[in-house]
């Protein structure tokens, strides 16, 4: 049967609002009586707060309140509660919020903030993940063992910087190494980086005389905000209302909760009046959470024929000064540590450690970009050691249905997809067979690199979603879901799913763009590429519920059995004679008999979903089911390196994902290309740069560089469609996956071009020069 809405390039619902400047983001809303909060952040990376003098600031015009860590002391965190919203007694990273000035205008608040004088007593710093592991390392948190655990499965080690450890123990390592005729080892480093959502994080909060706390925030997790505000401010859940309009990019960075605590505290301090706190770009980079750093060791063993026999992985994950979701990401990395390769003997030790850097949170890929780089660089080293073509080595070892994941999930076609097809397709897209290293002239080398990926949700085991489908009297539908529109056209995709289920025009499905936690049904968070799947399932359930109601009512109106009826094009008709029908509009709000008697009422469908059978990772061997399915893929990059100065151009970048089913091809391609663009940025220019004192040096977009137009390669995207049996129309998540292995493919290409081993990112021309110089010496 031909589809109505699935597989179609439907233009996003809010498209015209966005090109006319009429789409409103959180800080665009005017609010009567609004006050402004401005943060004062730490200029010291690790130190005791010896004194804070805000006497001058207090006297400045317009200033209403100045808050410090003593104002409403609390510790927060999604896994382990270790972070005060405003530092108390000590600071743990450069940029950490230490005070908050509230004034009538932003200029007044900022003027006062610049007059606050803070003295720190510097403490020795922890500068990188491996240094955090040392016995002599300064302690970022002195009482790590006393923090409250939000989830039971987190294992901080007292008197250390280790906040969590995950072990994967699968198979028999001795046997694996014995069977390994060739082994390779590599050490890799991936520094911190920033999300750089174009809209900086901002929150407006007020406390009404009724006690209701109203929060307006640029958040990916309105329901998470509600829960934690309720908990930390001692207010009933239902009395907290969180509103989220369109969000100007998130990429994971707006999933954690930071500004919201501050805004509610600020409102509390000024008698409940509305207060807006909006990050400057500098604060968004340095004060708000970032991407984790990773030091990784990977050791792979293979038999002479190129079959992987053993893999040993050590991941030291730098979560910065606070844990946030670092421990969860550490688990996510460990449970997928092999990449999409069959390995029967796996040993992984993953540590999540504190450093004196900006704290880390979810970042597109949830840790996968980092460990995948290490694994895929190691695969290229193994290919070289075996004298095998890198594509061939990967093809020999790709994981298949019937194999098990590192956390011992038994894989099926539905759960895994078909990574072999992805690799075949990407090999053709990048034209691998024409040669992976070609000398164009004396100075210019063209080279290609390839890398594979997989990723699952790594979500909590009780993550739920819901949808409400309410009919208008003209037969059109209002769709209300708790997923936030952060960019990838999630709401439009959900409308497509609903339109297809109802067999009606997608233009007749109206989606509420904003989320209001008092009105919208629940959704865990808009993260993990899971919204289409989870909310889509809820929408399907809601559609089913609505169709049942419609058909039952129509059966009465049409004096027949429900089994005789079908729904399509906003008509309920007799299956054996579609010319006999009733318009949906005539039953959507009840059926009115000639004469006026009415039966039935508004049709409202409801649907809910929970991901089945997820389980936590076992503490000793890592056994557990981290997500409902994987999305696998393969990526490739072609570069042109100039040996005269080691500058390079990224010529082409290709991705093939097993999307299960592509619901909106143009949107999906755009989201994947966007992920690739971010990943190429991470591979080629983006990273946090700290000085000796661990002060972050590049806190603006002048010094933190991202790709600009003209620097992008030609993008090639294609799909494999192996349905996921549980998903709406079989669709797998694809929101993050474009980023996951693309920098690995880039650096594989650059290493091949420059003939040096590049085992860190970003690869700037100076790094290639340096490695070549080292090689010469």
């Amino acid at each position, binding site marked *: 049967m031909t589809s109505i809405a699935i597989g179609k390039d439907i233009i996003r619902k809010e498209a015209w609002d966005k090109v006319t400047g009429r789409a409103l983001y959180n800080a665009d809303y005017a609010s009567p009586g609004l006050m402004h909060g401005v943060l004062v952040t730490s200029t010291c990376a690790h130190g005791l707060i010896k004194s804070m003098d805000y006497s001058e600031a207090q006297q400045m015009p317009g200033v209403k309140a100045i808050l410090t860590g003593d104002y409403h002391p609390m510790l927060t965190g999604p896994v382990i509660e270790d972070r005060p919203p405003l530092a108390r007694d000590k600071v743990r990273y450069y940029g950490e919020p230490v005070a908050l000035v509230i004034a009538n205008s932003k200029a007044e608040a900022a003027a006062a903030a610049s007059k606050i004088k803070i003295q720190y007593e510097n403490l020795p710093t922890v500068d990188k993940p491996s240094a955090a592991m040392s016995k002599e390392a300064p302690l970022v948190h002195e009482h790590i063992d006393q923090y409250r655990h939000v989830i039971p499965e987190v294992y901080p080690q007292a008197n250390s910087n280790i906040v969590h450890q995950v072990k994967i123990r699968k198979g028999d390592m001795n046997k694996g190494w014995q069977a390994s005729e060739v082994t390779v080892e590599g050490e890799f480093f991936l520094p911190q980086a920033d999300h750089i959502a174009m809209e900086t994080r901002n929150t407006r909060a007020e406390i009404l005389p009724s006690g209701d706390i109203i929060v307006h925030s640029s958040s990916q997790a309105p329901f998470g905000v509600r829960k934690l505000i309720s908990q930390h401010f001692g207010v009933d859940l239902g009395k907290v209302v969180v509103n989220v309009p369109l969000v100007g990019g998130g990429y994971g960075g707006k999933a954690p909760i930071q500004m919201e605590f501050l805004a509610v505290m600020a409102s509390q301090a000024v008698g409940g009046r509305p207060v807006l706190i909006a990050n400057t770009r500098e604060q968004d980079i340095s004060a708000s959470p970032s991407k984790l750093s990773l030091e990784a060791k990977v050791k792979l063993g293979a038999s002479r024929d190129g079959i992987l026999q053993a893999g040993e992985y050590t991941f030291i994950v730098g979560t910065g000064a606070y844990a946030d979701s670092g421990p969860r990401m550490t688990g996510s990395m460990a449970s997928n540590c092999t990449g999409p390769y069959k390995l029967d003997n796996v040993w992984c030790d993953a540590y999540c450690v504190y450093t004196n850097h900006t704290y880390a949170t979810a970042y597109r890929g949830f840790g996968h970009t980092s460990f995948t780089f290490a694994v895929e660089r190691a695969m290229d080293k193994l290919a070289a050691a075996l004298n095998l073509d890198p594509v061939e080595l990967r093809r020999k070892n790709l994981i298949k249905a019937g194999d098990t994941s590192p956390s011992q999930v038994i894989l099926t076609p539905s759960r895994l997809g078909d990574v072999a097809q992805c690799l075949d397709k990407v090999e053709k897209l990048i034209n691998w067979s024409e040669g992976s290293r070609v000398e164009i002239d004396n100075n210019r080398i063209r080279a290609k690199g390839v890398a594979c990926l997989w990723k699952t949700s790594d979500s909590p085991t009780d993550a739920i979603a819901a949808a409400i489908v309410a009919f208008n009297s003209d037969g059109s539908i209002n769709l209300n879901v708790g997923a936030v529109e952060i960019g990838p056209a999630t709401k439009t995709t959900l409308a497509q799913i609903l339109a297809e289920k109802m067999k009606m025009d997608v233009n007749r499905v109206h989606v509420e763009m904003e989320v209001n936690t008092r009105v919208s049904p629940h959704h865990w968070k808009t993260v993990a590429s899971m919204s289409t799947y989870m909310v889509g399932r809820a929408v399907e359930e809601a559609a089913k519920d609505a169709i049942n109601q419609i058909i039952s009512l129509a059966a009465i109106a049409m004096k027949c059995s429900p089994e005789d009826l079908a729904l399509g094009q906003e008509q309920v008709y007799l299956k054996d004679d579609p010319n006999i029908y009733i318009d949906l509009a005539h039953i959507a709000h009840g059926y009115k008999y000639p004469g006026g008697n009415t039966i039935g009422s508004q049709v409202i469908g409801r649907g809910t979903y929970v991901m089945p059978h997820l389980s936590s990772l076992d503490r000793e061997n890592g056994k557990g089911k981290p997500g409902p399915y994987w999305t696998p893929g393969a990526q490739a990059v072609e570069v042109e390196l100039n040996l005269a100065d080691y500058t390079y151009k990224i010529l082409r970048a290709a991705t093939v994902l097993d999307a299960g089913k592509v619901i909106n091809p143009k949107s999906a391609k755009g989201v994947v290309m966007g992920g690739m663009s971010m990943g190429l940025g991470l591979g080629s220019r983006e990273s946090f740069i700290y000085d000796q004192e661990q002060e972050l040096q590049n806190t603006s977009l002048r010094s933190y560089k991202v790709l*600009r137009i003209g620097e992008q390669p030609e993008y090639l995207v294609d799909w494999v469609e192996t349905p996921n049996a549980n998903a709406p129309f079989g669709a797998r998540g694809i929101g993050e996956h474009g980023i996951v292995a693309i920098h690995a493919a880039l650096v594989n290409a650059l290493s091949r071009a420059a003939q040096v081993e590049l085992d860190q990112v970003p690869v700037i021309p100076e790094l290639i020069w340096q490695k070549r110089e080292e090689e010469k010496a």
Partner: protein
Amino acid sequence: MFQLTGEGLIELNVNGETRKALVRPADTLLFALRERLGLTGAKPGCENGDCGACTVLVDGWPIKSCLMLAVEAVGREIQTVEGLNGAPIQKAFVDKFAFQCGYCTSGFIMNCQGLINIHPDASDEVMQEWLQSNICRCTSYQEITEAIKSVLITENT
């Protein structure tokens, strides 16, 4: 000699209208547009001239409104995204899926509109030079390139 020595009313010519705005001399044009005139299409993305999300046209040329004082704009013609009425570049952005979150879109569109006005036959090189002033974090720029090229007069059309 024009002068403003403290917070006061200035007249700005925006989208063909004369509008009064209460500003301090230190207030940026971005602030005046958003906070005083309710024109929130121009977005703050860095307030440092790096990202281009606040781009508007001043006397036809793209200007980062975070790097212009409101007082400097007195006597100049300002056009914001709200002043575009179904311009071809807007439709091109829609048709080519040239945005996702949409936050950078107003600024990109105004820069494109400036280019279309001033160099309607811009080469790829000139187009890139102009558009390198803006950052988009969601798309890959391939879609934005397609959108602007569909509106510029190229040799092939």
